């Protein structure tokens, strides 16, 4: 037996170390379809509880939409369960091509390539497009999958302070000797809800002859007046060279992702991106469901309008209730608590009040910036939001943080 007692003890020790640092992720089981109202078993073995979900990426409430479910069923019937192949051997159906074309049109880009996930898209795009003569200049708070993809690429890389255009300019000046400069940013940053000032970033890209890659996973479908994304919001639809995004959040929430952009760059991804070449195709039912999602979002803007209203209403009401939030205009709303234990304790008490939220702290976010991240959905009703705000007010009162700002909370609880 190669898995010896010594091996077991070694790995158990590592798990204990994770627990001792307070970083252990508990198991949570959802016993219903994904929605605003869900049934949860937490902790494992506890009786199931009906709670309101304020921590999912189901921004547009499409995860269990009947039309999407029906389309996925039809896709399963018409094109089968799985592809048993990567895309380039025998894993591309006509519906994969149809979804790619729809995404190109939806995002306003020349061409699109599907990946098994956006994590895979981000892992593959850099190495496919860039080489050692090039440099990647990335915002410091980009998603972990972009960080991994950048590290897998032979290009040099550098970073700029989060959303700091002055610092980005400095870095672009520094790297003028490189063959190509690629600026990398998220559209909406998932932990802070910040919206990158993409118009200013694109102006700098023009000035310093740089390309732009935008990960719009937390924006596709709802940011911008018709939900095309951050580039629509800032009116720079024609300035973006590459967009990576996911079908696993606002766009139905199942799985799959894509790279969309200039046709030569997409062709290089098709030829060279390793997750595209060596991982299975998106399943037919998910492709069919995703096609329906894009159709629904193209028909009208009702869902993104509802989400916009919900986010604005929650932000206004939570401020009136005396909580401290990171200001912004996206459906990602961090309720700032600064202290890790406080964030954890309050999230637990919120669950007892029937509101499912999660606390985040270092190293997931910066040290001293612990928070409960609230994510709004178009599936939330005004009553759902009122209930969440009332629970925050009640739990906040228990911990004596109502009306306190950053300084006040840190004085009371420390960082």
């Amino acid at each position, binding site marked *: 037996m190669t898995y010896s007692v010594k091996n077991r003890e070694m790995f158990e020790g590592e798990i204990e170390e994770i627990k001792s640092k307070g970083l252990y992720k508990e198991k949570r089981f959802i016993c219903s379809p994904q929605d605003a109202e869900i049934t949860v078993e937490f902790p494992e073995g506890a009786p199931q509880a009906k709670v309101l979900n304020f921590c999912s990426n189901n921004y547009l409430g499409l995860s269990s939409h009947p039309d999407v479910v029906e389309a996925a069923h039809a896709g399963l019937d018409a094109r089968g369960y799985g592809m048993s192949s990567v895309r380039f051997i025998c894993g591309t159906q006509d519906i994969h091509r149809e979804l790619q074309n729809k995404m190109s049109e939806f995002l306003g880009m020349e061409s699109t390539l599907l990946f098994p996930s956006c994590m895979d898209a981000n892992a593959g795009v850099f190495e496919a497009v860039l080489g050692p003569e090039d440099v990647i200049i990335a915002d*410091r708070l980009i998603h972990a999958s972009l960080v991994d993809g950048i590290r897998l690429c032979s290009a040099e890389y*550098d970073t700029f*302070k989060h959303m700091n255009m002055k610092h980005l300019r400095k870095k672009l000046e520094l790297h003028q000797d490189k063959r190509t400069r690629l600026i990398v940013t998220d559209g909406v940053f998932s932990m802070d809800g910040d919206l990158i000032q993409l118009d200013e970033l694109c102006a700098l890209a023009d000035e310093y002859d740089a390309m732009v890659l935008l990960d719009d996973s937390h924006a596709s479908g709802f940011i911008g007046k018709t939900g095309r994304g951050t580039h629509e919001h800032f009116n720079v639809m024609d300035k973006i060279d590459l967009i990576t995004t996911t079908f696993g959040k606002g766009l139905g929430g199942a799985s799959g992702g894509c790279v969309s952009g200039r046709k030569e760059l997409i062709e290089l991804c098709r030829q060279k991106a390793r997750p595209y070449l060596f991982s299975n195709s998106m399943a037919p039912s998910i492709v069919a469901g995703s096609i329906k999602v894009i159709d629904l979002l193209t028909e009208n803007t009702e869902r993104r309008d509802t989400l916009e209203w919900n986010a604005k209403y929650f932000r206004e009401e939570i401020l009136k209730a005396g909580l401290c939030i990171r200001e912004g205009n996206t459906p990602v709303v961090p309720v700032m608590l600064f202290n890790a234990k406080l964030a954890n304790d309050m999230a637990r008490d919120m669950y007892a009040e029937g509101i499912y939220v999660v606390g985040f702290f*270092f190293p997931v976010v910066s*040290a001293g910036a612990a928070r409960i991240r609230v994510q709004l959905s178009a599936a939330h009703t005004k009553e759902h939001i009122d209930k969440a705000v009332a629970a925050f007010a009640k739990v906040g009162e228990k911990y004596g943080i109502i009306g306190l700002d950053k300084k006040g909370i840190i004085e009371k609880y420390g960082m």
Partner: protein
Amino acid sequence: MSKMHEEVLEYVIDEYVDEDDDIEVEVDTALISSGIVDSFSMVSLKVFLEKKYGISLPDSEATPEAFDTVNSICELVIKFQG
């Protein structure tokens, strides 16, 4: 404080601390383990040190531990300056 300590400290503050950040960085301030500098952003510091002091730092030596304070960074640079 040596000239090198001053130069590295100045670079770290300029590169990693925002004007509105409530952080004071000294030569013994923990940079990586405190979250002021993350491992992804550490690369610009490595490039700065290599260019400024004409050294080559192998990845095996440019660890988060070695880069955790200005003091430890300067020790590393001196070691590779020979």
